[in-house]
């Protein structure tokens, strides 16, 4: 049995996992380096989708669907709207300039290496657990210990709603309808 870092390649699920991991990693890289901002945004779609797939591998099915709903159906659409609203007509094709790519790459690589070193060298106390349904456990946690954060998040959302609406209204006024 071939096993790479605990990944049993005789198991067909492992290949599906590798495919999702590859999609996530490749599209995240594309977000970072693409010269076209719209390509960056649509790569972000693949990243979010791949991450949702990884959540399923982690038995977090509710959060996987939430990821699709909020990130792809909400944040990504908002980002796309933002791109199409704020970019000038002439530079839509090559519009994603970078500054100091080498310095940035060095910093990013350093961060990655440190994190990778820590995660590979640390002796994690891993527990083997059978997969279980998560949605009602999340609900119980919301109503139990996390009741205050649950209610506070509605206040946060209210703030975000009022703030975003205010900012948009201000700039709309400036534009002159």
């Amino acid at each position, binding site marked *: 049995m071939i096993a790479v870092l605990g990944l049993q390649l005789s198991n067909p699920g492992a290949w599906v996992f590798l495919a999702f991991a590859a999609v996530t990693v490749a599209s995240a890289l594309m977000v970072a380096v693409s010269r076209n901002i719209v390509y960056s945004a649509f790569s972000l779609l693949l990243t979010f989708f791949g991450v949702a797939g990884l959540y399923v591998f982690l038995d977090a099915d509710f959060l996987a669907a939430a990821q699709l709903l909020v990130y792809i159906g909400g944040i990504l659409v908002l980002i796309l709207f933002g791109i199409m609203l704020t970019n000038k007509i002439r530079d839509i094709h090559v519009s994603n300039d970078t500054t100091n790519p080498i310095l940035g790459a060095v910093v990013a690589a350093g961060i990655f290496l440190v994190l990778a070193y820590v995660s590979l060298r640390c002796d994690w106390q891993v527990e083997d657990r059978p997969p279980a349904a998560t949605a009602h456990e999340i609900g119980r946690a919301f109503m139990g*210990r996390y009741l205050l954060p649950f209610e506070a998040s509605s206040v946060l959302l209210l703030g975000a709603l009022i703030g975003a609406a205010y900012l948009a209204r201000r700039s709309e006024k400036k534009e002159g309808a």
Partner: protein
Amino acid sequence: MIASLEWFLLIGAFLFATGVYTILTRKNAVSVLMGVELVLNAANINLIAFSRFIKPVSSIGPQSVALPMEPVAASGIYGAPWIQGQVFAAFVIVLAAAEAAVALGIILGIYRGLGDVNVDETVRLKG
């Protein structure tokens, strides 16, 4: 389990690094926001992976407070201990949405004020 914890941590670390790279190098404010989303996703992967793999040290229910329905607390109405990471990830999603809404509102304001969304040139606070 198909993949071990290290796999998810490595993917998370990679997403985090690409996110940081995007934030550091991009000029366009919307691109910077995309980098932030990558970082938040990396954090979420880590939270959920730890929640899935690591043995929880403390139970989720209040142990010190005696509630009138104490026998019930043991039966799991507070949610299983291993769910904590996922609950945190859910709050991260909430936070990400709120952050994206406000950030894009601000970007729109910058665009209206300066006619551009280049973060290098946004040096004035007054639009």
